């Protein structure tokens, strides 16, 4: 754990927010919260899902109007009328969901609104050059003139960070920037953030990874239910106490994952078997066996093709080689509906684009897959829908006043839980989960892992893709390791340890390119 030396005289306050309040219809998302940022510090903003972290950030940048409170920068009160105003005041932010524009090029995204010009026209060549140079500082060597949509979530995340870093004069705010990054990229980012800190920037850092909090930050502000719990120096706050601050109670026994394998090793005929399944230009042929009551984990670097294996298994993409055998019969999946009919479920990784149906209520989002499975004619009676929704809201502890709220009003982590509920409601035989714990807070994280184990023990087959290697190691019966869009190994039984997985992933680490 890095323990930054505490300076004798506290550095000057750059930004002071006092009594920030945000009232949504029915929810007081933020209630009189204070935040003090000092020059040259990295400040962790922590709290459970729905605690109000993102809301606080939205108020700081003026992305949302506030119902009360003041913000001063360098002692001068500001009233940002929008992110544009905040940037002028020296504040830049990376929001929780990537808010870049997929229809623009990488360089255009980096320099939107402040493009270099020559003779009044945008100087494209220079913009692309500068953009590429900027990204190289983040370890990315890419052609900045290519459309943003060509790049993976991770790369986009880095681009968003690069943009904000380049924009921020005084304050840099990062809302869960590491959620979709892997270890190497996280290290690059941290090095850079430390440099920026040393140059006097104030950095706000939101995350659910406590390791990262201790590795990087100097000071911690904790929120709970929209209220300020306290501000502490990282070095002086023990881990357990921090968790207690966040949860409002002492953490239950294991906050750390121990390996709890299935009661019996998977054997016999698997429920689903993929043999040489693959698709040209998507992912190379891979084998996978999914047994009832067992977990197959998938590990790999970003862009290694784990998501693509899930897409083939769920019929989102149609395989053009190999075969898929379900219940001993070869099947061809042409659409997700085919997979659902076989009793599959799939929680995609990008919850905003592929997961939630934003305009609809939490209830409707939860029942959607089950209803689609039943067909349009056999509508679930409203009472049954409410019952289901309430059941899962309680089971998964989704923080919401009621099931009729539009789902986009939930905090990110709670949306993720609602999506899990959508598939649990269909009672699937095979559940495919792509990054199920991304953006989930410490408390909920353990709960979800316990839930997965529970599902497994009740006989469900699980295929879990996760970037959190410890987690994969903890609950998997087998681990499929992917590299460069092709399978790179299969770990089984006792050989599954975090170290072994890392080794398998990194077998030829040098080849890992930029993207």
């Amino acid at each position: 754990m890095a323990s930054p030396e505490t300076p004798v005289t506290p550095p000057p306050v750059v930004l002071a927010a006092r009594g920030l309040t945000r009232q949504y219809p029915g929810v007081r998302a933020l209630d009189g919260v204070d935040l003090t940022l000092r020059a040259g510090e990295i400040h962790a903003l922590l709290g459970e899902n729905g605690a109000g972290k993102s809301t606080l950030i939205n108020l700081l940048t003026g992305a949302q109007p506030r119902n009360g409170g003041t913000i001063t920068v360098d002692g001068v009160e500001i009233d940002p009328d929008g992110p544009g105003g905040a940037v002028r005041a020296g504040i830049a932010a990376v929001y929780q969901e990537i808010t870049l524009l997929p229809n623009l090029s990488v360089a255009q995204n980096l320099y939107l609104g402040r493009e270099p010009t020559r003779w009044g026209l945008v100087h494209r060549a220079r913009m692309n050059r500068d953009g590429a140079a900027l990204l190289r500082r983040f370890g990315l060597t890419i052609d900045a003139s290519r459309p943003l949509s060509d790049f993976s979530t991770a790369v986009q995340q880095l681009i968003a960070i690069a943009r904000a870093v380049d924009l921020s004069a005084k304050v840099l705010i990062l809302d869960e920037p590491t959620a979709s990054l892997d270890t190497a990229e996280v290290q690059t980012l941290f090095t850079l953030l430390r440099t920026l800190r040393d140059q006097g920037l104030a950095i706000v850092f939101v995350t659910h990874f406590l390791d990262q909090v201790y590795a990087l930050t100097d000071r911690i502000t904790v929120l709970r239910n929209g209220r300020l719990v306290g501000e502490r120096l990282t070095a002086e706050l023990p881990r357990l106490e921090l968790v207690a601050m966040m949860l409002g109670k002492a953490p239950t026994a294991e906050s750390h994952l121990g390996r709890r394998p299935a009661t019996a090793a998977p054997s016999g005929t698997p429920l689903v078997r993929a043999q040489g399944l693959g698709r040209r230009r998507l992912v190379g042929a891979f084998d996978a066996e999914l047994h009832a009551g067992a977990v197959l984990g998938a590990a790999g670097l970003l862009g290694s093709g784990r998501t693509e294996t899930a897409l083939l298994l769920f019929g989102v993409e149609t395989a053009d080689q190999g075969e898929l055998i379900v219940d001993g019969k070869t099947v061809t999946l042409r659409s997700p509906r085919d997979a659902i009919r076989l009793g599959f479920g799939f929680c995609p990784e990008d919850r905003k684009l592929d997961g939630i149906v934003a305009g609809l209520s939490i209830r409707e989002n939860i029942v959607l897959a089950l209803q689609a499975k039943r067909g349009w004619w056999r509508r679930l009676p409203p009472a049954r829908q409410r019952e289901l929704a309430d059941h899962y809201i309680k089971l998964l502890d989704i923080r919401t006043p009621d099931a009729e709220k539009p789902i986009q009003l939930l905090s990110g982590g709670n949306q993720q839980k609602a999506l899990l509920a959508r598939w649990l409601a269909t009672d699937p035989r095979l559940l495919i989960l792509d990054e199920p714990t991304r953006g989930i807070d410490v408390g909920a994280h353990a709960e979800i892992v316990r839930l997965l184990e529970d599902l497994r023990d009740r006989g469900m087959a699980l295929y879990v893709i996760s970037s959190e290697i410890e987690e994969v190691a903890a609950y998997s019966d087998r681990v499929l390791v992917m590299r460069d869009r092709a399978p790179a190994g299969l770990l089984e039984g006792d050989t599954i340890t975090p170290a072994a997985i890392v080794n398998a992933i990194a077998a030829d680490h040098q080849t890992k390119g930029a993207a």
Partner: protein
Amino acid sequence: MSAVIQRLKAARPQLALLALALLVNVFVAPGFLDLRMQDGRLFGGLIDILNRGAPVMLLAVGMAPVIATRGIDLSVGVIMAIAGAVAAAGVNAGLAWPLAILAALATGLVCGLWNGLLVAVFRLQPIVATLILMVAGRGVAQLITEGRILTFTEPHLIAVAGGTLAALPLPVVLALLAAGLTGLLVRATALGLFVEAVGTNPRSSRLAGVHTGLVLGAVYVWSGLMAALAGLIATADIKGADANNAGLWLELDAILAVVIGGTSLYGGRFSIGRSVLGALVLQAMRTAILRAGLPPELNLVLMALVVAAVLTQQSPAFQPLAARLMARLKNKEARV
């Protein structure tokens, strides 16, 4: 029961608008609200608005789900013309009237299927996909009538517009039935949910197992069917199929009605009932303008002003303003 109250509450802005529009009518034509019974049929200003508004009500009933899927159907006016032409040509060629009506409805279905195919399977942008039929379809209708007004005397076909059922003009009954049936179809089954899901996020919906193509196709087919019914009414009303003018620009009325009914052109939530109210608001405004006795050169400007007022009233930016105004008024009252 509470569901009904909830719906009425949701429809408050539309109901308020309708009341306002009717008030203007009363002002323009005294005795507008009188209802009288004659030969087993109700007569009166309100009935006129329902009756004249029936075609656009039908179009709006078909258009609302289309718009909810983030689509648009520009071809409904033309489908009206084609369906009318088919029915008229049918009875004039000696086809029995039920068959002629069926043929007209089937034509609407086929037109809708074509639109649905282009949107759902070929993935054309809805506005262009339906523009194709909008352009070519008028020609098809004219081809059937050879550019003339095909008049007919088949009494049953005429009764589609002139008949009476339960003391109401048949078009009113048909429009209300169609609205009711559609409402039932989307709300008593899961179709409504699927339509709204597909309109909000097609990718998520597909991943959740919704047959997005089928949903998309179905809404256009339904819209075509409703348009054909509207076409039958319009044709029966003038006892002739006017391929050149039937349904001309009515697609815009239908879209306006749906939007006044509170459905966003960006897809998602929709309401059949409120769309019908939207159509009635439009018709009431139109009737008022027609009867006001002002020079016809003013019609368009009046229409623009009225719609602008509606837009302002419905705008979210206006709501807090209105609330503040109301509060201030109340304060004043209290003080007085």
